[in-house]
């Protein structure tokens, strides 16, 4: 009896000390630094991860007569999981969806490429501009953000339509004798996308190029490289991180863009964002719409993961 009594006293005190250790550990977890780190994660879990899982769940369920059937159901006290791949199968078999995805990627790539070609020289000369001018140039890049995005796209509409400002001006000047078809086609779509996403290309490029050590350019010149060779063999490879970051920032939102194709695109400019909208709000087919969204996300995740693997590689190679 005594032994067991002592034993139980011992185990209780051991339990208490264990508990104190646990509480202290928990307190440490809640202390400033980890709290600061965990808050954004909490935010992301609540507002990104959970909704994403819901979307994934809906994409794998059936569309009932009034609402979406649940993947998880209870029959006779046992949980049953019923997964329905029909939306994905339909997606893979219907040429329209495949065409739309390809077309979205095509326009996103085109936009990214044009943004890069236009943005690189801009970022390059901004980084080389006198130091006192740079904040102002940077400000000019960001100025459009002060106006609503929607408003700016509408403004393009008034510029580009058949009796819009550009056509009227050209007509009255006699440059053309019938309005140019520059609205509701792939031209106006890409123009609108390049216009909207150009700052996202320029800013990371500028950040990268302004850090470029000019001695590398001098070293290249010293070793016999002319301006073009120096640019191609030194500047471009050394700004690779900026090029990738800028391209991602343009490409990713451009793939799923809805507003610009809706307002500036034509009936022939297929973009996945519009299909998504139609599935949700016109067809009211939530599983299908969710499946479209999930596939789109996977399409975007691929280049994203490439980027992050490149960045970690870069981080490793830094001294």
């Amino acid at each position, binding site marked *: 009896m005594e032994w067991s009594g002592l034993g139980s006293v011992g185990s209780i005190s051991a339990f208490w000390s264990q508990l104190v250790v646990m509480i202290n550990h928990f307190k440490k977890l809640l202390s400033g630094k980890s709290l600061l780190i965990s808050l954004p994660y909490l935010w992301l879990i609540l507002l990104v991860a959970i909704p994403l899982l819901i979307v994934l769940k809906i994409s794998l369920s059936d569309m009932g007569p009034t609402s979406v059937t649940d993947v998880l159901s209870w029959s006779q006290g046992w949980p049953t999981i019923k997964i329905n791949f029909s939306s994905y199968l339909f997606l893979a078999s219907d040429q329209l969806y495949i065409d739309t995805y390809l077309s979205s990627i095509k326009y996103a790539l085109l936009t990214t490429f044009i943004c890069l070609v236009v943005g690189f020289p801009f970022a390059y000369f901004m980084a080389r501009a006198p130091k006192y001018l740079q904040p102002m140039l940077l400000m000019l890049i960001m100025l459009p953000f002060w106006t609503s995005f929607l408003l700016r796209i509408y403004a393009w509409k008034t510029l580009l339509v058949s009796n819009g400002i550009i056509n009227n001006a050209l007509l009255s000047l006699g440059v053309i004798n019938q309005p140019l078809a520059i609205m509701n086609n792939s031209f106006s779509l890409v123009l609108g996308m390049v216009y909207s996403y150009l700052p996202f290309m320029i800013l990371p490029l500028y950040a990268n190029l302004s850090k470029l*050590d000019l*001695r*590398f350019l*001098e*070293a*290249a*010149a*010293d*070793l*016999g*490289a*002319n301006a073009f*060779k120096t640019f191609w*063999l*030194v500047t471009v*490879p*050394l700004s*690779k991180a900026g090029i990738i970051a800028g391209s991602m920032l343009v490409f990713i939102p451009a793939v799923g863009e809805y507003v610009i194709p809706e307002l500036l695109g034509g009936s022939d400019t297929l973009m996945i964002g519009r299909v998504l909208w139609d599935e949700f709000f016109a067809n009211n087919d939530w599983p299908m719409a969710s499946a479209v969204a999930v596939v789109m996300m996977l399409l975007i995740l691929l280049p994203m993961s490439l980027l992050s693997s490149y960045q970690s590689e870069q981080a490793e*190679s*830094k*001294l």
Partner: protein
Amino acid sequence: MATEPKPNKVKTDLLRVEGVTKIFDGVIKAVDDVSLTVAQGEIFALLGGSGCGKSTLLRLLAGFEVPTKGRIFLAGQDITDLPPYQRPINMMFQSYALFPHLTVWQNIAFGLQRDHMPKAQIAERVESMLKLIQLTSFAQRKPHQLSGGQQQRVALARSLAKQPKLLLLDEPLGALDKKLREKTQVELVGIIEEVGVTCVLVTHDQEEAMTMASTIAVMHEGTILQTGTPDEVYERPNSRQVAEFIGDVNIFEGQIETYAADHVRIRSEVCVHYLMHGISGHVGLSVVVAVRPEKIVLSKKRPAGEVNWCVGEVVALVYFGDHTIYHIQLANAQVIKAQQMNRTTDLAEAITSGDRVYASWSGLALVVLVQ
């Protein structure tokens, strides 16, 4: 440690700089009417403090800057207006500027590829450069995977690969720590002499200039104060600035008291200097007498004679192991430095702080400079 400069067999001028001036922003005279010649095979050092214009002068030679006035000739050809990529000159940059995205091999091959050299020949040349710098097994490394000393050698190989007529070195040892510097310095000079390339090097470190260069040009405020061999600029500085810039020096201000063809007496506040050779000047001329610390002998006994010594109190001593530098305060509160080799292990005999000592020097150890 010091590497003897190679005697130049045939002195032909390779580089000639004629009256070059560089003005920045219309006002800042970085280089002011500089003329110099560098002989074939020479290692020529531009020595000076920061902002003396030595780096600008080097950049003018490389072609990164265009002179406001004056011409630059290389092997008789006027290269003043040639862009850097057309000059047969290569530079080893300060902290090397190795391309971080290229391997050691690609860095060395970069210049050769720009000349459209056949691939096989490039490979051969790169291999021989790698052998020269003893980094053959590091060919596929990126610069950040190398130590500072290895990066320095790659930078040297890259600048030598094109077999330039003139090699420019911008603070070649500046990025290395002290221990590594001495070793690298010897290696560097060894490689340069093996290749036989003419060099212009820029440094603020007089020791680096002394040990590496065959000729030193001391620069100050955009002009060259003195050009000469290392021992010339050290033992016979032509101005107080040069004397004070190169090494430590004790300066005594005074006037010429007696003046003869074979000797000169100069009276300064604390002592009389007796110079055992003639100089140009006249009685009453204000001059400064420069005496290097290592030329001073300290003694607790009064030296014989009335000239070339002074007396003072040891106020500080800095012990270096092999030698000690004594700071001696004289009667007029001037503090002079004297360097003594520590020849015995007998610590009891040693001069210590607070001792009254006589500092003397030979009549051949003086340099007299006109104020």
